[in-house]
């Protein structure tokens, strides 16, 4: 518990310092100026959503291979946190786009595939709510989660493969890509901060799912005890 609180405090401090570095330490971008600083929250959340969905993908495979519930718990934890991160990406993106492009949104390959990714994992979470049997729920969502992950490489390569309104990649991009060293350091700091928050959120959500499993087990035990008691009373009659 003490370790968790310490880690949460460190993550929050990193977020605050990351915000300060994004505003005051990172150099001004020549064409977009201040609004470009959204980059330091937008990109780390995009990367973290990919990491979270990759965790879901691995957990889903592991569940199908082992049928151990802990992989299902990790899958749902990763999916929820991934959806939270991509929600941030989908909100901060248009806030950045409006002053720069003059529009909030356009249906280009990068934006559309990101929105589809958000829809897929939201559907993954909704699907779980429709199924009562825990094993069927875990099984269906594992298959769906593996299928949904196919959109992640599509999002990543969309602005490399097609001409998009969304800028071309500045990290691991073509010959003309690249980032000022100070911008790179601030981006790394912000990414570490968001990754720490993501790790805390996944751990908390995993704990919630484990408790839910414990609750279902207990409820089953209480219900079966109640049924046994009723049968005994009827037999005595």
């Amino acid at each position, binding site marked *: 518990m003490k370790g968790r609180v310490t880690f949460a405090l460190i993550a929050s401090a990193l*977020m605050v310092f990351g*915000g300060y570095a994004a*505003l005051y330490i990172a150099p001004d971008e020549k064409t977009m*100026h*201040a*609004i470009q*600083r*959204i980059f330091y*929250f*937008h990109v780390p*959340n995009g990367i973290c959503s990919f990491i979270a969905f990759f965790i879901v993908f691995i957990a889903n495979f592991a569940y199908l291979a082992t049928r151990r519930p802990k992989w299902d718990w990790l899958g749902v934890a990763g999916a*929820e*946190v991934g959806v*939270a991160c991509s*929600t*941030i990406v989908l*909100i*901060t993106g248009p*806030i*950045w786009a*409006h*002053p720069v492009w003059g529009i909030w949104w356009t249906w280009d390959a990068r934006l559309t595939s990101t929105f589809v990714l958000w829809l897929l994992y939201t559907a993954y979470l909704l699907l779980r709510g429709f199924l009562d049997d825990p094993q069927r729920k875990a099984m269906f969502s594992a298959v769906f989660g593996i299928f949904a992950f196919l959109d992640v490489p599509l999002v990543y390569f969309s602005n490399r493969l097609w001409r998009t309104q969304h800028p071309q990649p500045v990290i691991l991009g073509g010959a003309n890509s690249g980032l000022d060293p100070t911008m790179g350091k601030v981006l790394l700091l912000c990414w570490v901060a*968001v990754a720490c*928050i993501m790790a*805390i*959120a996944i751990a*908390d*959500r995993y*704990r*919630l799912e484990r*408790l*839910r499993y*414990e*609750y279902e087990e*207990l*409820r089953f*035990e*209480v219900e079966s*005890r109640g049924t046994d008691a009723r049968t005994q009373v009827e037999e005595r009659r």
Partner: protein
Amino acid sequence: MKNFESLFAAWMVVWAVFFVYEVSVARRLAKLRDDINRLKQQMREG
């Protein structure tokens, strides 16, 4: 600073989403803990 409002809004969105999410997980955790304690109590009472 030009577009400061947009920058501030984006920064607030990041905090708000994480904060609301963590609060929602904490509330769900607290409710589940209560339900588990209630069931354990029920089992003890037979």
